């Protein structure tokens, strides 16, 4: 049963990270609301952190570097979510909509 030891394999985590990244890109292009795009951005960030953690576990000589990096990614993602959501609230107050197709005042 070789398949049961996949959790001890670097490539497994890299492929999962790539899948999360791809799903996030798909949502980013296909979503039509700002909050949906923010959710996709969080998915992309978590794919990147998963890659960092996998390299940290299997390849890094100092196994704290990737953990510190992932903690910093979490802090940045929290700050980004707070700023983006308050911008979304402000946009909703002005346009009464969070649809990306409605906020086109600068479109020529």
């Amino acid at each position, binding site marked *: 049963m070789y398949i049961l030891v996949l959790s001890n394999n670097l490539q497994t985590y890299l492929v999962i*990270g790539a899948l999360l990244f791809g799903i996030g890109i798909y949502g980013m*292009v296909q979503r039509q609301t700002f*909050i949906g795009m923010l959710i996709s951005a969080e998915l992309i960030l*978590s794919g990147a952190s998963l890659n960092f953690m*996998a390299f940290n576990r*299997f*390849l890094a000589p100092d196994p704290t570097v990737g*953990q510190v990096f992932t903690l910093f990614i979490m802090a940045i993602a929290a700050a980004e979510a707070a700023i983006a959501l*308050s911008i979304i609230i402000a946009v909703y107050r002005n346009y009464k909509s969070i649809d990306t197709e409605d906020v086109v005042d600068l479109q020529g």
Partner: protein
Amino acid sequence: MVSLLTVEGLSGLLFFGFIGITLAGAIIATSARSLIRSVAGLALCFLGVAGLYYYLNSPFVALMQILIYVGAVCVTIIFAVMLAESSELKQVTRRNVLVGPLAFLASGILTFALAGLALKTQWRSAPCLVNRGTVDNLGQSLLTTYSMSFELISVVLLVAVVGSLVLARAGRDK
């Protein structure tokens, strides 16, 4: 060779459960029609990723993942959905019908390229480890080697909090 009825076999099976939770949550988060459901899918995906972090020898980062992402970020997004989403679901789409398939194609190519690169490369492991990467080591390096970044990230968070307060308060009497 690992049998299913040993500790290693059962933990390998649980690992597949975490992979399934992660990918199912991500797919729900991008394809659900209502935003609340997609936030719930995001929380599910973050729980799965926390389980994967646990398998990567980092229980502290797994705990922080649950605490920050599921506990803070998802709840904040739910607040914004409650404040901003209009009650009636708009079904009119004024966009090109090609956007969905093209998005699928682009993300598929990107995922295929990244996964193929990960599988084809010969990864070389580190010759020796300077520490074991436990919570003790993590705290020490966070407060010695990375203390400057630690302080900077506190300033960034403070600026983000003040900035989001200013942004959300401006024009409230409209």
